């Protein structure tokens, strides 16, 4: 205000500031994992904590009925599975379980963006590591992206950049399952060969071909399908899990993950 500059100079300065601020924003977008780490570290969560906690508590209270229904449905399937294990003798040694689960509850969740994220209240000290899968009572919730001491940042299944390996129950054909950003209760299963017949209502399961999710978790039912580029089928999947009422999830701990990942890396570097 004290020094009088020419309007052109002032315009140039504001253009410069504009470019600087836009660059910062674009860096935030492209380095999103760094920002995620920032978000779940102590100071940030305590600033945000009050709002998020109150918010999710109120939402949780209004959705109690549905959350309860989900949990009891999961209970039912787990009991059935337990009965099956009791009947057979496969699983005598309980130390030999391949998948362990860390129960967690959701601090923050969203379904109204293209990139949705979930923050859960379990972190490094509870044994959560990056790239672990997160399953919900009625399906798959996402994959852990960043971990702090007490919290983890999860890329939700409802994120256009996320994809998981899934297969059709009846035929066993598998492909990537991803979200197209159009509806919070639908996802797309792509790359299914054309000759595979799918009837509406077929159950879609996780394939277990990645080290992230255990196999045979029901995700949803098949809906309409269409042929894309004349070569592959794309199937609409109606998800079992309602992400709006999600409250409790489990983080999947795969005992053999490191071994398998090492095997893959060694194989790639070994065979030049």
């Amino acid at each position: 205000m004290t020094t009088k500059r020419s309007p052109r100079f002032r315009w140039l300065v504001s253009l410069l500031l504009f470019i600087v601020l836009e660059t910062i924003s674009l860096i935030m977008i492209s380095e999103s994992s760094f920002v995620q780490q920032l978000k779940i570290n102590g100071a940030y969560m305590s600033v945000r904590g009050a709002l998020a906690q109150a918010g999710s508590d109120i939402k949780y209270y209004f959705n109690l009925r549905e959350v309860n229904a989900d949990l009891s449905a999961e209970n039912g399937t787990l009991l059935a599975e337990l009965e099956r294990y009791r009947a057979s003798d496969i699983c005598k040694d309980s130390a030999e379980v391949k998948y362990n689960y860390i129960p967690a509850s959701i601090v923050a969740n969203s379904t109204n963006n293209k990139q949705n994220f979930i923050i859960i209240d379990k972190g490094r000290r509870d044994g959560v590591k990056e790239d672990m899968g997160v399953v919900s009572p009625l399906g798959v919730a996402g994959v852990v992206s960043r971990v702090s001491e007490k919290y983890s940042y999860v890329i939700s299944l409802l994120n256009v950049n996320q994809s998981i390996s899934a297969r059709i129950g009846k035929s066993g054909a598998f492909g990537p399952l991803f979200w197209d950003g159009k509806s919070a209760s639908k996802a797309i299963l792509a790359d299914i060969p054309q000759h595979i017949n799918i009837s509406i209502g077929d159950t879609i399961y996780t394939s277990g071909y990645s080290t992230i999710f255990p196999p045979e978790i029901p995700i949803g039912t098949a809906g309409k399908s269409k042929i894309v580029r004349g070569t592959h089928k794309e199937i609409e999947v109606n998800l079992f899990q309602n992400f709006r009422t999600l409250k409790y999830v489990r983080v999947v701990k795969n005992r053999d993950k490191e071994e398998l990942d090492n095997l893959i890396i060694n194989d790639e570097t070994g065979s030049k």
Partner: protein
Amino acid sequence: MMKQGVNNTIIFFSFLIAQLLVSNFIDFGPMVFIVLYPLFILTLPVGISSLSILLWAFAIGAGTDLLYNGMAGINSASAVLMAFLRQPVQALLIRKGELDSQIRPGMFEMGFGRFFAYSALLLAIHHLAYVFAESLSFVYFSGNISRLLISYAVNLTLLMLIEFGIFYKNWR
């Protein structure tokens, strides 16, 4: 000058809190995103320097980005672009010296028609930037166009209603 700065700070925090509450509690599914802070950027006083407009816009965009668990950087990128183009759009609609330099360019001061054109133009710029920043490419544009149009209609209506309901006569 001092009083104006204090006023802006109060309005800034009210908009930030309102935005966070709306993003956290109101959920119409992935086809609609609701933004309230564009009204804050639109109605910063006319005489304020373009540098401080950019900084205010960045502050409210980055605040929304960091305190909400969406993708970081989207809101700040679009808010800053909107703030940068505020001056040229104003120059289209307001004659030089018509509004007092301390005044807030609101519906009461500009008249309904001009305020509508002013906010419609800048909000369109904001929404285009928002959708492009989300996918960082033009590839998904056809998939996003319905999301863009629905959100634009919702946000423009909300913006006009808030301006009319809260700021129209009470604020001078």
